[in-house]
């Protein structure tokens, strides 16, 4: 039983990190209906920029992170200005293609700037079991995972606050709901989109820091975005709580499946189990756990 909980907790904590990537997708999808394929590339770009600033220019970490944050904000506004604005009113698929283009640009640009070697990112948080818990209960729970989860929780709380309490939050929700109506009450659509992309950039930065420090900053970070897909299908593309709960479920279930079902089928389940789960969900509940119900009046 203790082993079960150990696996469960490890799964939930890694799920938080999936949720973080999914969150970036949800923000942009909600506000503009664009499925931002470049979210994974943004994660990679942000992490590589932090490491690059640190190693090439000798920035200390406390300076490299805010500097990268500024870069991500600038990137968000530039994306709106250069990529999205000329494509206003085009089909969703056109915008989707544009974000694929953005993906290639970001991946190429990041590696052109900082090179393509795998780099270590040390946040000063050690990936060791928490001793107190180990002595008390005998469970091995990674300190890094717990701190990462804490950071995610703070980030989500800040976002929730921003969305629910401020004028810009109300404008964001309004734009997410109806573009035309938002325009009519004087909400500047383009400005709001710029802000959303900037916020998604900051979320990508946090995800990049955590994933990068765990797995090393490398090209494979862009594939993290793929893991966010089953999370989104589970949680719903338009729901922030959905992204979090979806992430937790995916994280926990893939670890549990690996440990308990894995031995019977030769292991390696972790890699594909989330996609199967997502497929099942698509059959039963296509809008996801928290997504907006698809209602058609006839």
């Amino acid at each position, binding site marked *: 039983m203790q082993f079960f909980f150990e696996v469960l907790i490890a799964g939930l904590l890694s799920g938080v990190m999936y949720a973080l990537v999914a969150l970036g997708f949800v923000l942009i999808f909600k506000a503009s209906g664009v499925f931002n394929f470049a979210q994974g590339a943004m994660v990679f770009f942000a992490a590589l920029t932090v490491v690059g600033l640190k190693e090439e220019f000798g920035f200390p970490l406390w300076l490299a992170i805010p500097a990268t944050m500024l870069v991500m904000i600038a990137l968000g506004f530039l994306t709106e200005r250069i990529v999205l604005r000329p494509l206003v009113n085009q089909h969703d698929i056109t915008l989707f293609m544009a974000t694929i283009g953005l993906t290639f640009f970001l991946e190429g640009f990041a590696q052109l700037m900082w090179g393509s070697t795998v780099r270590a990112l040390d946040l000063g948080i050690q990936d060791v079991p928490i001793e107190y818990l180990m002595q008390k209960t005998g469970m091995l729970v990674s300190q890094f995972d717990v701190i990462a989860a804490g950071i995610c929780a703070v980030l989500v709380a800040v976002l929730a606050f*921003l969305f629910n*309490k401020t*004028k810009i939050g*109300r404008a964001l929700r309004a734009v997410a709901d*109806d573009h035309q*109506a*938002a325009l009519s*009450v*004087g*909400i500047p659509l383009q400005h709001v989109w710029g802000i959303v992309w900037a916020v998604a950039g900051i979320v990508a930065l946090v995800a990049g820091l955590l994933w990068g420090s765990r797995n090393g900053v490398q090209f494979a970070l862009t594939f993290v975005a793929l893991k966010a897909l089953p999370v989104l299908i589970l949680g719903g593309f338009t729901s922030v709580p959905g992204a979090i709960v979806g992430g937790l479920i995916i994280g926990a279930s893939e670890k549990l499946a690996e440990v308990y079902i894995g031995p019977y089928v030769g292991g390696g389940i972790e890699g594909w189990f989330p996609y199967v789960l997502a497929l099942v969900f698509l059959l039963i509940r296509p809008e996801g756990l928290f997504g907006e119900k698809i209602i058609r009046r006839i």
Partner: protein
Amino acid sequence: MSDDRKIGDVILKVDNISLRFGGVKALTDISFDVREHEIRAIIGPNGAGKSSMLNVLNGVYTPQEGTITFHGEVRKDMDTHQAAENGIARTFQNIALFTGMTVLDNIMTGRNLKIKSSFIEQAFWFGRARREEIENRKKVEEIIDFLQLQSVRKTPVARLPYGIKKRVELARALAAEPTMLLLDEPMAGMNVEEKQDMCRFVLDTNDQFGTTIVLIEHDMGVVMDISDRVVVLDYGKKIGDGTPDEVRNNPDVIKAYLGAH
């Protein structure tokens, strides 16, 4: 003719507006004016360019030719944000509400431009933010009372019946305290009772707040009853302009719009 309401000077004037979408001429050489405090109707058969005209007035479409003079300022086109800041609010033919939000939140979005505090003040709920929120809420509650929406105040808009949704849209427009209100078919698809309610609200708005109203409507009874002056469009051209009586007796209008009665 108009009753004892005081109709003022011209506040909006459009001159020789032409609007094309590729080869399609939506509007050709349209000129008319709107006076302060009046109710001005735009009528015409389907596809006459009424909605396009409204979209030009609040900046959704940019006309290729012509000028718009609003409060004495001549411009080539409006910009939606500018229009809202200059006191133009509107409703839509196919209701455009924020369906996920409650009635109250929807109406609050109408106050968006009135909020001046910074987002840091709002996030931590101090200084101007608190005062503003209270002021804005008060104003919104007044509008809720005015349009008799008290009972649905906290209901998500998606659950409301059609007639009430139309009313919520009007409430959101009024929340901006507009000087000019553009209504795109405010009574379309309503039953008689709902229409009467809506008529009353439109007249009361005009009366109590002195709001200038430009409205598109298909129900001729309603148009002739409540409007001071009427513009008639057909195939993107203006074919009539005047008081309801004048328009009713205009041979061009009779031919094009009212049919061969």
